[in-house]
């Protein structure tokens, strides 16, 4: 790949970005006077909500994945493809969508109130759980669906010829697969939810529904208690590392699954009741996932034409941050698309963006005003957080390329630059486009570290939407959310499309 020196520089900069901020956090944590009851509560809530979120996501995903695995219907491919969409969906957009459906003035309450039924309350633990299930049910479904489709068709045929009933089929064929896949899916979602910030910020809050990440934010933003933030950050790192290592051991299935658009023919599921049950799961899941998005579009259209200059300014900031983090992430990823590079990149999952943000804040503070560097820090942290996903996408093809053309490169004596420009970039154009789209969309929708640093002049669009929500300017917030949705999906589409256009055979 790139010259060894470039790989070493890229690796050292990633290591520096981990060690520097963590060291700064550890040093600051020495001044800590002890855990307060509120900190214990935050730790407890973090663990409880992550456990319940993972459990609910997996429990609902099993029947949904089974229904998708054994039923063919018009729009199935589209629905399965849409299950990948929440990954690049800005959290604040999803939250606004969920509020529009399940919130105090949401669609459901407008139906329930006239019937004299009690109103739904979305804020608190159940709101956090609902948002996490919204984001992670699709992920769990895709993982489990892949497991279902990986069962050889011969097993179903054999079961049919043996005249196996549903119970026997479950025991002999489906349960062994689920036992292998489900713990990994649970662990991955648990890790994701452990570092939940934006969901907790918008739907949680209050002493009873504060995650560690949110407590870190509150220590920084409201109390400016850097020592407390640092200790909470260390606890967060410890938790994420332990859970991440467990997840790594338990996960056997890659997230980027292929071939999910087919279904496995079955001979034991022709009864009308089973068709109805499967149909109900599919319809309910589609409604749960698509209605909030539809509401974002419906509510946002009116506000879209009445956005203030500050919203457009923050949209400009978001675009710059997204482009910056995409460029930085690819600069890291190209020379690190190796096995050891991927291990290094995993630190992007283990290290919480907020902890990283605090560390960078502490490092920068003696030399410059950290708030003035908010957008640069956000772009850097977003690039770092996207790195593991980008490496997962690039590494397999980069390694194939090295295996196929390494000797030709050697025989020609190609320089690192010539290899990069003439071979690597054109041959990896497609995965590079996809990876760039993913990074840009993730960065565009991020509401994490920017919340720590930004003053009103440097807000990104997700933060601006959050601020508008906080000020109860819901129409503008809805317009901003729709703009954010369009920009995130648009950026993803542009990069992904760019990678596909003119790809040489």
């Amino acid at each position, binding site marked *: 790949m790139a010259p060894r020196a470039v790989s070493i520089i890229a690796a050292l900069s990633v290591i520096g970005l981990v060690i520097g901020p963590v060291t700064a956090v550890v040093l600051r944590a020495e001044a800590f006077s002890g855990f307060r009851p509120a900190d214990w509560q935050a730790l407890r809530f973090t663990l409880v909500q992550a456990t319940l979120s993972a459990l609910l996501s997996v429990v609902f995903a099993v029947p949904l994945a089974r229904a998708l695995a054994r039923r063919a219907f018009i729009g199935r491919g589209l629905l399965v493809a849409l299950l990948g969409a929440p990954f690049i969906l800005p959290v604040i957009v999803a939250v606004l969508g969920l509020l529009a459906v399940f919130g105090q003035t949401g669609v459901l309450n407008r139906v329930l109130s006239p019937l004299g039924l009690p109103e739904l309350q979305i804020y608190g633990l159940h709101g956090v759980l609902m948002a996490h299930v919204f984001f992670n049910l699709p992920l769990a479904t895709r993982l489990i669906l892949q497991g279902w489709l990986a069962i050889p068709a011969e097993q179903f045929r054999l079961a049919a010829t043996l005249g196996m009933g549903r119970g026997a089929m479950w025991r002999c064929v489906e349960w062994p697969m689920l036992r292998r896949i489900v713990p990994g899916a649970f662990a991955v979602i648990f890790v994701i939810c452990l570092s939940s910030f934006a969901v907790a910020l918008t739907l949680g809050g209050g002493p009873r529904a504060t995650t560690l990440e949110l407590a870190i934010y509150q220590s920084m933003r409201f109390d400016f208690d850097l020592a407390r933030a640092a200790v909470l950050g260390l606890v967060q790192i410890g938790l994420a590392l332990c859970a991440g290592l467990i997840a790594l051991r338990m996960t056997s299935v890659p997230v980027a699954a292929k071939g999910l658009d087919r279904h496995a023919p079955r001979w034991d599921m022709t009864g009308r009741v089973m068709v109805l049950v499967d149909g109900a799961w599919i319809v309910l899941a589609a409604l749960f996932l698509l209605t909030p998005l539809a509401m974002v579009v419906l509510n946002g259209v009116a506000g879209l034409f009445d956005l203030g200059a500050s919203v457009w300014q923050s949209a400009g900031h978001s675009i710059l941050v997204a482009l910056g983090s995409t460029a930085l992430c690819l600069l890291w990823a190209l020379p690190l698309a190796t096995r050891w590079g991927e291990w290094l990149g995993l630190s992007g999952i283990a290290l919480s963006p907020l902890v990283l943000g605090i560390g960078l804040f502490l490092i920068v503070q003696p030399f410059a005003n950290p708030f003035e560097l908010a957008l640069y820090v956000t772009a850097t942290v977003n690039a770092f957080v996207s790195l593991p996903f980008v490496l997962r996408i690039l590494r397999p093809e980069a390694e194939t390329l090295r295996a196929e053309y390494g000797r030709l490169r050697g*025989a020609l004596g190609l320089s690192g630059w010539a290899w990069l420009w003439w071979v690597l970039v054109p*041959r990896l154009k497609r995965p590079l486009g996809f990876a760039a789209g993913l990074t840009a969309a993730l960065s565009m929708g991020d509401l994490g570290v920017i919340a720590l640093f930004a003053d009103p002049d440097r807000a990104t669009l997700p933060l601006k939407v959050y601020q508008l929500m906080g000020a109860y300017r819901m129409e503008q917030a809805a317009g901003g959310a729709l703009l954010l949705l369009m920009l995130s999906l648009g950026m993803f589409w542009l990069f992904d499309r760019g990678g596909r256009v003119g790809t040489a055979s």
Partner: protein
Amino acid sequence: MALHLDAILARAGEFELAADLTVPEADRVAVVGASGSGKSTLLDVVAGFRLPERGTVRWAGRDITRLPPGARPVSILFQDTNLFPHLTIRQNLSLALNPATGRQRPGDAERIDAVLERVGLSGFGGRYLSEMSGGQQSRAALARVLIQARPVLLLDEPFAALGPALKDQMLDLVAEIAEAEGLTVLLVSHDPDDAKRFARMVIVVEEGQVTAPRDTEALFDDPPPGLRAYLGGG
């Protein structure tokens, strides 16, 4: 000016290759032997893809043992992947001429045209590999090594995928060019007929032991026991 392999010992896992021989300048030498005997390992040592544990490789008296493949006076034609399929033939040749940048310099276009004409591919510079037949692809690969203009040419069964007539045609073309340019050529082949057709001398590789080059005709008239077994003579 000759290619010397002095007391070479190379290892590939459990496999060991020992070679001590000299290939005269501007000679065409075939390397024959059974599958897994070490023919390709021998070529890897000469090309620089495998560092020997012991011994030296010298060209014209200069020790090239530790030089990287691209810096050696050696070009090599592999069994496959001799060109990048996403680049046109002209871009591939340009990259071979300027491995540091890949950018064409003044005079490069004329050199590329001349080499393409030499291998019978005039007017094919703008094509991709996928737009060419198997024979044309082999000629394009040959153009790539010719434009590198290095005195030693290694051929690692590059025409094995071609039909017999096309393969003979390519071997004749390489022989003709090698003669004209004064190239020293080592051809690895599992087909004794290739050796007879192409090479004046033959090196036999048997279970990692490499013999010194012998006259082709004399060798096949009275093959040593190992080669006889390989040829099916018992």
